[in-house]
């Protein structure tokens, strides 16, 4: 919209300058003009000068700088989906020394086709260090409109639930542990051993962790193995001695799903 206002102003100034040039080249009386503000010009054609400067500035700063194709509005109901960062670029805009980035994302809805979109966001320097290709973010999008995507709050319950459904649908939770993860209770645990299995899926690595589970109801501690897929960025939180959480159903303490933070069961 703003670009079109600038372009209209540029075309209006172009018309004014052309008319003044035509008047100078063809007029029999150069002291008069069809523009009332030009008649008392003196020795310098001030209107032509000012118009020329504005014309040049509009031309230089923006009116033809290749505005991006307009993004579609509207769309269906809003959903939350995980997205993988494909590319990150600075837009050149800064607000209070905080640069704006355009983050290109591959959005993978739990139900539906994967699509590529982008989101512009002001990101401080420490946060920008985490914006690497391959990283994951949660986004909100409208069905049928891949052009409008916004970042979702990763700590919200809605996002947590969506991520869980997405992990189940992508086979990132072993079938035998789905009940433990979706219906179990979360209890504190510590990592005793960690061993990668060598399997990878959706950019995540599978590890088997030996956990020492410490139930909060005062019952005896016990050791158990848990095989889970982890995002490579999360591996630093799962080292020998790291405090984690074990999710299991009370009647099946042998089937445990490890989580880094305390998680809620699926609603």
């Amino acid at each position: 919209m703003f670009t079109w206002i600038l372009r209209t102003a540029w075309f209006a100034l172009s018309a004014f300058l052309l008319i003044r040039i035509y008047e100078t080249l063809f007029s029999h009386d150069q002291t008069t003009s069809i523009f009332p503000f030009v008649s008392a010009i003196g020795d310098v054609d001030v209107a032509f000068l000012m118009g020329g400067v504005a014309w040049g500035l509009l031309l230089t700063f923006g009116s033809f700088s290749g505005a991006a194709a307009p993004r579609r509005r509207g769309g269906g109901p809003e959903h939350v989906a995980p997205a993988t960062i494909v590319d990150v670029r600075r837009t050149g805009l800064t607000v209070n020394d905080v640069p704006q980035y355009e983050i290109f994302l591959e959005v993978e809805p739990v139900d539906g086709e994967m699509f590529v979109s982008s989101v512009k966001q002001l990101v401080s320097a420490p946060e920008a260090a985490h914006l690497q290709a391959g990283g994951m973010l949660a986004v909100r999008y409208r069905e049928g409109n891949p052009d409008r995507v916004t970042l979702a709050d990763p700590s919200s319950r809605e996002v947590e639930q969506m991520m869980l459904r997405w992990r189940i649908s992508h086979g990132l939770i072993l079938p035998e542990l789905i009940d433990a993860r979706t219906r179990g209770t979360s209890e504190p645990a510590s990592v005793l051993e960690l061993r990668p299995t060598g399997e990878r899926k959706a950019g995540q690595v599978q590890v088997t962790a030996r956990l020492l589970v410490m139930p909060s109801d005062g019952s005896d501690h016990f050791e158990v193995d848990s095989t889970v897929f982890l995002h490579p960025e999360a591996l630093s939180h799962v080292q020998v001695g790291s405090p984690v959480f074990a999710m299991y159903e009370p009647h099946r303490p042998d089937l445990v799903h490890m989580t880094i933070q305390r998680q809620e069961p699926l609603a």
Partner: protein
Amino acid sequence: MNILDTLIWLVNFPATHAYEMVFLGAFSSFGLIGLALRKGPRRSRLAELRAERGQASSDVPAAARIGAALQAWFFRLLALVVLSGLAIAIASLVFGPITRAYIYENGEQALATSTDGISNAVQFEASDGETYTLNMPFFSPPTYPDKDAFVSGADQIVVRYLPGHPQAYVIDTTESIDSWGEPIGD
């Protein structure tokens, strides 16, 4: 009317509007050069990524390509015109309008009067029977052969103008005389 006269008449515009053209050219030159050198229709990174994944056509639409090519050629032509005007204007500010010698050599003579008012203008009747009232710029005065002649003190002004384009004129400083009866030029 010949082609050279027409060319000089066109060049005479930036030469006699040198002060204005320097500003116009200086403020627009970067934008014009940038637009003239811009290559092809640009695709956003988002469109590239979508095309790589088969979610959008990888070809730029023909209409967009033709439009971008036409725009680039338009700005190349405009850059040539404006930057030539800038060069003519700078030369004219330094040396006086660069078209003066040609108009003086090939122009027709006419008696002129200086008009009163805010505009510093000369008025003369050309051979086509029309009366022309033309501005006399302060920063690039069309006086020849003496570019520093003081025209406003002249008692009788003689101009030379191109017969086909009387708007292109110079003040003949050897024929124009002041109130002492002396030529206004050296």
